[in-house]
């Protein structure tokens, strides 16, 4: 097993370094190798979806078999998944019947889930002071409310001074967002480097 871990690490590091060099160095054949390896990764991720589907079904079947809480709902999930996947394999995703699955189930449920956030977000912001009563929370809610005020259409047109609010808050938000994005990029960079150095090996190696 140890040799497997070592070979896996070698595979990950070499693939990663080739792709990374393909990003920054345009010396042939690095860019082509990068595309080839990313294609492989896409294929592996695609095959992983089939394994994941099995996992999804197996977990629900286990719930049904052991009569766990929600087992009956699990049966619904498995049934709908198998029917959709079965028909999808036969008919293809562009078939009108498959589009029906999207139009009749996926879009309505997702859109409705998104819609209920219009209530739950208000609820969460009302309860914010019950969670944290500090100046940052006050600033947060103040900024949100003022920004919505500046955006809000009224029967008399936009509120006076809306442009100034949008200018100042927009500038602050752009600056803050830029700082956050740069920070996240730094974190991503270092996380990726840890994997490329074999310090993190989530692929089964210790």
């Amino acid at each position, binding site marked *: 097993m140890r040799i497997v871990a070592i070979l896996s690490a070698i595979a990950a590091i070499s693939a990663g370094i080739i792709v*990374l060099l393909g990003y*920054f*160095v345009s010396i042939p054949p690095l860019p082509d190798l990068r595309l080839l390896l*990313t294609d492989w*990764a*896409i294929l*592996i*991720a695609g095959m*992983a*979806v089939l*394994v*994941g*589907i099995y*996992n*999804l079904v*197996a*977990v629900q079947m286990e719930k049904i078999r052991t009569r*766990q*809480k*929600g087992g009956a*709902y699990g049966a619904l999930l498995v049934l709908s998944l198998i029917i959709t996947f079965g028909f999808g394999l036969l008919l293809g995703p562009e078939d009108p019947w498959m589009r029906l699955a999207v139009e009749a189930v*996926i879009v309505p*449920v*997702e859109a409705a*889930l*998104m819609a209920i*956030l219009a209530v*739950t*977000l208000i609820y*969460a*912001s009302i*309860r*914010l002071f019950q*969670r*944290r009563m500090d100046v940052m929370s006050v600033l*947060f809610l103040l900024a949100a409310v003022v920004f919505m005020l500046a955006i809000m259409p009224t029967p008399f047109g936009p509120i006076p001074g809306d442009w100034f609010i949008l200018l100042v808050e927009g500038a602050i938000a752009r600056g803050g*967002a830029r700082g*956050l*994005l*740069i*920070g*996240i990029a*730094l*974190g*991503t*960079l*270092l*996380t*990726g*480097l*840890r*994997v490329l*150095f074999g*310090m*993190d090996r*989530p*692929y*089964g*190696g*210790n």
Partner: protein
Amino acid sequence: MIALGLLGFAALLLLGLTLWRRRSRAILRPIDAYERLNRAVGLAVEMGTRLHISLGRGSLATTRGGSALAGLAMLRRLAERTSASDRPPVVTSGDAALAILSQDTLQSGYRVAGAQEQYRFSTGRLTGLTPFSYAAGSMSVEHDENVSANVVIGDLGMESALIAEASDRENSSLIAASDDLSAQTIFYVSAQEPLIGEELFAAGAYVGAGASHEGSLLVQDILRWLIIITILAGSFLKFLGMI
């Protein structure tokens, strides 16, 4: 060229600081959310309750994989620490490859902890292949599995509001971070102590995942100030019209 230089510099710093950190531990600023996480882990072990760890839906074949890798590093450590628990944590993901990796990570963690028998394939779950189906599946886990704490770390978008709402309804603790700013905003308003910005990538260091995680935080600090200095100097020179 600049990018390659930055990359090489970061790599060298990471190697050096990691080696250094193996000799002396870094002192990092306290982050309330991670203190809460460490308490939640210990209490879940102690009380026999379930920990729900959600790794988001960042596909590793895309650029969104960074946060997923950070979540996996944290998961590995949490797996070791919860290996003595009556109820092993449930790990949910919205990406199939990530779900497989979460199973591998759980197995590795338990193996190192000498508790292989704790591993069940059903503890590393794919709850959906699209963002909202993943969130909906995770809501069900929160509802059905007697979860005492939800640790949501990874790539999530607006669907994170559903997970936060379910956690609130189930009255379970929520420790959440995402690399997406919309999700961070939602967690900022929903979680007791929000994890914002790059704090997501500090998860490993704060749960004790090793010197490399500490080292990478120090490299982040060094690069951070280099970038700040570059921006300030560049802005000034640009204002003067010198560049």
